[in-house]
């Protein structure tokens, strides 16, 4: 109970401190930008610990962060095996194939205004579909191993990237295009020198959305059949056998990997679209 009270107070204290930092002149420092959310996360974990132990929540419902950390440390081998299976083989393969295919096809259909006009509404529509629903079908088509997971990821990331890229390719303004016309620039020159650079902010928008979808897709697909490894496999069997701490360890891996993936894409975005107003300050 003391721990509970203490953790609540600590959390409020951290919030107050963040408030101070956020209103101080150093707030735009890289250090501040990382420090503030990290200590808030730390304080929240502490609050969680306090709540769970203070209120005596059963570990089969919600384990304490310390238990999760212990399990994490004790099962690194398992977690690594699952990471390789789900992330490296399933999600990343699917992500790379899906994004590349979408990008290439977007550039190809962009040549034809007929195809663009025909495909874009359909693409928008499909992008809105609950693609996870096709997971059982793809598992039955592509088998139990990572290939079917990659296939689900491909389908999930394909349309967001396609739609964003096509839109980005049309995003050049009339004057920028006219300039190319006065130079009598060819299709390829216009594409490489004008339209692709101008499309990059949109492409990256799609890639970022796709990066959060990729993991979800790979994990959901494992619910419909998998070898006896993988994050989705471990999560679902973990729930079944009440190893909830292991489930949370897997969730932690997913969150870390997802954040790194998203952060990585954002980092590349920053380097590539440094010129865009949203990247300048």
């Amino acid at each position: 109970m003391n721990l509970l009270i203490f953790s609540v107070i600590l959390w409020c204290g951290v919030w107050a401190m963040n408030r101070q930092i956020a209103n101080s002149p150093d707030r735009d420092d890289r250090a501040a930008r990382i420090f503030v959310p990290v200590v808030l996360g730390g304080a929240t974990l502490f609050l969680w610990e306090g709540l769970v132990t203070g209120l005596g929540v059963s570990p089969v419902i919600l384990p304490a962060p310390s238990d999760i950390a212990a399990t994490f440390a004790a099962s690194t081998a398992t977690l690594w095996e699952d990471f390789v299976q789900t992330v490296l083989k399933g999600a990343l393969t699917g992500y790379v194939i899906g994004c590349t295919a979408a990008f290439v096809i977007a550039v190809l259909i962009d040549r034809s205004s007929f195809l663009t006009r025909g495909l874009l509404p359909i693409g928008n529509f499909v992008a809105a579909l609950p693609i996870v629903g096709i997971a059982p079908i793809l598992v039955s088509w592509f088998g139990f191993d990572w290939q079917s997971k990659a296939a689900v990821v491909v389908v999930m990331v394909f349309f967001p990237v396609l739609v964003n890229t096509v839109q980005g390719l049309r995003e050049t303004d009339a004057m920028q295009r006219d300039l190319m016309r006065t130079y009598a620039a060819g299709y390829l020159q216009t594409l490489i020198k004008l339209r692709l650079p101008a499309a990059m902010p949109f492409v990256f928008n799609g890639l970022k959305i796709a990066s959060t979808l990729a993991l979800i897709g790979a994990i959901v697909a494992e619910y419909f059949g998998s070898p006896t490894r993988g994050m989705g496999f471990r999560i679902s069997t973990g729930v079944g056998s009440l190893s909830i701490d292991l489930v949370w360890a897997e969730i932690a891996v997913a969150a870390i990997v997802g954040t790194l993936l998203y952060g990585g894409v954002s980092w590349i975005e920053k380097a590539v679209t440094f010129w865009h107003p949203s990247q300048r300050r």
Partner: protein
Amino acid sequence: MKNAFPVLVVLAAILALWYAAVAPMNIRTALDQAERAGAAVEPAGARERLEVSVWRLMIDNPDHVSEGYALDRPRLPTPVQVGEELWKTTGEMVLKGRALSKRSLIYHAGITLQSTLWGFLLGTTLGILGAVAIVHSRVMDMSVMPWAIISQTIPIVALAPMIIVLSSQLGIEGRGVPKAIISAYLCYFPVLVGMVKGLRAPTASQLDLLRTYNASQRETFFKLRLPASLPYLFTSLKIGIASALVGTIVGELPTGAISGLGARILIGDQFGTPLAIWAALLAAAILAGALVTLLDVLQRVTLKRMGMQT
């Protein structure tokens, strides 16, 4: 409207591809059946056929290719089969006056729609309020935004059972609320991001103008930030409702929600009736299309009335 023709052509092309893909996808099943029925199949024996490519099988057994188009449990059903199944579970039900029976997809779409709308309402409210807080408070901006992103990297399917257990512990009956929570979890993020962008859309000079009038924060919000964010709002609402639908279906898949389109997909899988899965998927697609179109129309009308689009 001028897009109608290209869209139809592309749709026709997709259907044609789909139709063509049915033959190779189903040839093995078709040959297995034909062999059981006593037909001579080349090569004989399902195990032997596993070593042979589908193209070879199609060439060697041209008579049986067509049987792949009429299977009960196809790996890939034909568009017509899916259409028929959909009609059987919707239109025919309506004609029989049983539109809202448990066997009707209309009933299940209704269940899914209900959760989706609750999730959408909850998610957009959260997203918008969050965005308002983030735009007006730097602490919120610095501490909450990164966690909002991280929240989306957590596999919601893993949390789904815990959400159900926790909400029942909090005394919430039924599966509707947990489904709506899952749906809101997926929905709030695009709305939050879009609205933060939108509420920050006013340029420095637009803000300066109001400063010279000494306008209050409230006035700045209602007279500048909110109207300036409307195009972003609608865009994020469209993504939001699509995400809410995905969330509901994800929530219905593994949480044993006993009704709704997600549950139909699950049961279709469990009892080996692929046609039921495809029909439910198609129904979900139609639902998604209808919802997004509705918001799109709303967007056009509103923005037109606000003079923001020609």
